């Protein structure tokens, strides 16, 4: 009888610990997924800006473009200097660089982000593997507790 109670307490404690671990893993997985989403959006943004650069380089000179001024309103503007781009480099600073340099810098950023995405995906896979390992144990222990 004493041994059974002791085993029940041990099981209950194990279940509690595993549930805590599972909650923490699920939170980690959510966080990783959110980070992957941000990285994906940034890569898409960068890829879109390369497309714009290519277009401007080929057909930009003297073209009229619509510049957004907020709230869905635009003003007309002419492209004056299509060979250079003003590019943010962080730290609230931007530099004027040639379109080719800008393209190279953007491609480097994409490469860095792709490697970060791969790293995050590997971590997510590892966390999911642990979740799949713990989940059946939690279910089994919870079933045993319910039977009592």
């Amino acid at each position, binding site marked *: 009888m004493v041994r059974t109670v002791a085993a029940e307490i041990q099981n209950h404690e194990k279940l509690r610990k595993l549930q805590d671990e599972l909650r923490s893993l699920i939170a980690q997985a959510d966080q990783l997924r959110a980070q992957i989403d941000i990285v994906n959006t940034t890569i898409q943004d960068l890829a879109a800006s390369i497309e714009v650069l290519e277009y401007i380089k080929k057909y930009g000179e003297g073209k009229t473009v619509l510049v957004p001024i907020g709230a869905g309103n635009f003003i007309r503007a002419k492209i004056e200097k299509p060979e250079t781009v*003003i590019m943010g*480099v*962080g*730290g*609230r*600073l*931007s*530099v*004027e*660089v040639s379109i080719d*340099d800008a393209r190279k*810098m953007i491609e480097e950023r994409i490469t860095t982000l792709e490697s970060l995405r791969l790293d995050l995906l590997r971590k997510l896979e590892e966390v999911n593997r642990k979740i799949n390992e713990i989940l059946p144990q939690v279910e089994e222990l919870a079933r045993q507790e319910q039977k009592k």
Partner: protein
Amino acid sequence: MAADLAKLQQLIHEYNVVRSEIVALRSRIAELRSAKSVLEEKRPRTVFRIIGPVMVETGLEEALSFIEDELEVSELRLRRLEEQEKKLAKTIEELERRLGIAPS
């Protein structure tokens, strides 16, 4: 006991605030270092500094000196915050031990 618990809660809150400031500052320092390396590598003639909603044209040397100043201030602040973080962690640990609760 109740007073100690309230103090512990307050210390944990302060610790979390300091932690998030450290994270933000580390990210700012990394950003400044990256901007510095781009400027040093590309040596562009025209640099723009974002001040509020406008971009003001500035020279390369001026931009580099702005980054140096910002880095110095940020690194100093980071060191102070890291010291504060250590002190808070130690105080929290001591208080938790005195209250007989598991370390957070």
